């Protein structure tokens, strides 16, 4: 009994990882399988939350919180608004033919086989420095490092350090800012209220 308890405690990261992994994988399969589009969005919510949990386990706290804030609290809301605004009659049930399902399932399985073969057969030992997920007590300052990278100062151990001038990710950061502005203007223009044409059905 004590051994079971000890191994239970010792594998606390493993248990958390198992919960998050099962959530993510199970709910992403449910996204594919369900026919109802609103239910698919709900399963996507749980998938994204599971992924955020995995990010937190992998030490990326800033990225995990950003995932929750932007993906769940932004993109998913956008998707569900799209679902609600394009609802007309039997919108929730659009059945796909079984022939297409079979073909897609076969392609999916082949792709998964290919991906898992390439993952499992690569010799990761050469590049991997950590063997397992450890939950540590102290806070690692990923926010500071990310912030410095986005301002153009790559911290130690970065792949970009081969450039002595040290550009970091300043240029992509600025480009993404302008990109978001352009996307906002474009989406607002595309989705503006226009006179509705008669249905071409």
């Amino acid at each position, binding site marked *: 009994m004590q051994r079971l308890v000890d191994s239970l405690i010792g594998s606390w*990261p493993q248990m958390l990882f198992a919960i998050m992994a099962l959530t993510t994988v199970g709910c992403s399969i449910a996204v594919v399988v369900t026919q109802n589009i609103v239910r*698919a969005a709900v399963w996507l919510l749980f998938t994204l939350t599971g992924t955020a949990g995995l990010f937190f386990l992998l030490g990326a706290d800033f990225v995990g919180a950003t995932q929750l804030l932007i993906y769940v609290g932004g993109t998913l809301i956008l998707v569900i608004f799209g679902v609600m605004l394009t609802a007309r009659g039997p919108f929730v049930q659009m059945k796909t033919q079984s022939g297409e399902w079979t073909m897609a399932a076969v392609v999916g399985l082949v792709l998964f086989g290919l991906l898992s073969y390439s993952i499992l057969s690569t010799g990761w030992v050469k590049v991997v420095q950590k063997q397992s997920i450890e939950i540590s007590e102290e806070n690692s300052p990923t926010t500071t490092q990310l912030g410095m*990278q986005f301002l153009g100062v790559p911290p130690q151990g970065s792949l970009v350090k081969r450039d002595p001038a040290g550009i970091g990710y300043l240029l992509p950061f600025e480009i993404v800012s302008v990109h978001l502005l352009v996307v906002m203007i474009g989406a607002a223009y595309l*989705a503006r209220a226009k006179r509705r044409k008669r249905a071409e059905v």
Partner: protein
Amino acid sequence: MGFVIATVQNQTMNIELTSVLLIGAVMFVCGVVCMATKRNAVGILIGAELVLNASNLNFVAFAYYTPFGIDGQAFALFGIVLPAAEAAIALAIILNFYNNHMTVDVDRADELKQ
């Protein structure tokens, strides 16, 4: 099952890089199948989000397990922000499509067909 046996034997399995990459692979394949099978345009968008999430997971996994620095997390941040922008444009296009066709069934978008 192996996890249970290992636990009872008082050994803990390591969560290696491959486990996290496999989760990413499953999500990616689910996203691709979702994009291929859904007839609703918003369903296709949901599949695209799954694919991009899988790639984010890969980036963060490499940032954790390898000594290549925190670049993976920086890329994952870009991979969160840019799909949000893409979803906005995709939904604007879907709304336009809906306004013209009264449906979001992509099988009805066949005006460019011969």
